[in-house]
């Protein structure tokens, strides 16, 4: 008790240790007060803040470099897929078109039936394998996990959670549209008397549900409607 010196030694016997008339020396309150900003604490805080600024000055550009371009939505443009005469009515043609990146070429099935053209992407909606068109059954099969789609790309068997994605398609001649959009979003109705120079253009990709309603483009494996669609809000 009465260890006012702070050196841990017990008080010598006999020393009065009760109340005194003279106040003891005031303790160094500032250093013990955790809320008081001493010079040491201020300078330490400045050093830490400066270090944080320098670290951010290096890390933020680096992370932006690695990430920013990759999460942008992909650009798209109308791609010329050939003259309308290449596509026989009642048949589905498979052709390779160039994607927005020079390297992102993709394969599209152009289905021309009942005077309507739709363009179906060959990317399987399950996990992205290339889907194969079966002429005999007018359907599509994915070799990876056994997904099967009907003529319009709707899932008939296997694990795909939604139909095959589609591309916007239109027919132009001399810079003017020939025909008009078809019944289903993304399709194009071709008139019977299309001019000779008419060309088919393939555009932006989008996803559809079972009723062929359009949605923004989803990645493979993602549902577009139902409860699970909330797992993919972006």
């Amino acid at each position, binding site marked *: 008790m009465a260890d006012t010196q702070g050196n841990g030694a017990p008080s010598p016997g006999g020393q009065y240790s009760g109340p005194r008339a003279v106040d003891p020396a005031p303790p160094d309150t500032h250093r013990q007060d955790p809320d008081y900003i001493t010079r040491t604490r201020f300078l330490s805080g400045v050093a830490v803040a400066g270090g944080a600024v320098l670290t951010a000055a290096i890390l933020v550009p680096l992370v932006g470099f690695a990430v920013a371009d990759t999460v942008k*939505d992909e650009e798209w443009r109308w791609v010329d897929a050939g003259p309308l005469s290449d596509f026989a009515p009642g048949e589905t043609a498979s052709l390779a078109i160039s994607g927005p*990146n020079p*390297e992102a070429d993709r394969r599209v099935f152009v289905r021309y039936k009942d005077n309507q053209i739709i363009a179906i992407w060959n990317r399987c909606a399950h996990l992205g394998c290339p889907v194969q068109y079966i002429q005999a059954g007018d359907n599509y099969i994915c070799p990876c996990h056994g997904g099967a789609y009907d003529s319009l790309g709707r899932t008939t068997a296997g694990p795909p959670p939604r139909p095959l994605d589609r591309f916007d398609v239109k027919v132009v001649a001399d810079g003017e549209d020939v025909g008009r959009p078809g019944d289903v979003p993304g399709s194009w109705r071709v008139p019977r008397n299309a001019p000779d120079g008419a060309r088919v253009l393939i555009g932006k990709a989008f996803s559809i549900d079972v009723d062929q309603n359009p949605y923004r483009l989803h*990645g493979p494996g*993602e549902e577009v409607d139902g409860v699970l669609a909330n797992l993919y809000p972006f």
Partner: protein
Amino acid sequence: MGSAPVTTKDIGPKNPVAKAGEAAVDYVEDRTGARTGLRWFLFRNIPAETSWFQTLGFAAMAVFGLQAITGIFLAMYYKPEATTAYDSIRHITEEVTWGWLVRGMHKWGATAMIVIVFLHMGRVFIFGAYKYPRELTWVTGAILLIMTMFMGLTGYLLVWDEKAYWATVVAINITASAPILGPYVADVLRAGPEMGPDTLSRFYSIHMLVIPGGMATFIGIHLFLVAKLGIAEPPWSKRAYRARRAEEEARRAAARERLPYGRREVSADPATPETVTAGSDS
């Protein structure tokens, strides 16, 4: 220097070559403490029941070292461009001297590493060697497992043939199907919305630089913890068995004597507690 004076009759080696060697080692030891540190690491006490199972950890590290070395040498001939990658690997396999051997070691070493790492993890689990104080050893090991699997994923694409390409497409799409952030993580991995040459470069950088750096760090931490905390006793070790038996005996003896609330300590020195029977005087 500065150690206590040592009295010994050993005046060291007489052979001048051995003397030179000793002098060199002493030079480094005096300036770094390397020999002491190495002795601390190598000459550790281990439980009596240590068996071949405890070699799996070192085997995992050895395979990692093999992968690192063969990978470094493969990188001297591999060309990480979409147009040249496959051909450079064909060149390594068919034309470079022993290229087939180095590439084979790397390829099969990858499989061996996954197998050995899982065996090691299973051994640690069955031996209960993850319990206190070794929880952080287990956690660093789990992080190393995830990094090992990422090495497998990124290295697989570097061949850039059909199998590698589409396997990676599927793997990244599986990532993309994770909720909420999955598509973004997949976009970052894939360097864009579609696979392309940027993906190859990114995977090459991750495979060569990012993950090996991380693995080296975590292997260092993992090894340090293992050396510091010691090899764990298996649950069937004789010493642990004897200790458990002694406790059980003491408990039964106390119950037989019907001592209230356990044993009573009567010795003045608290380091040597003695039990007494209930009736005797203290």
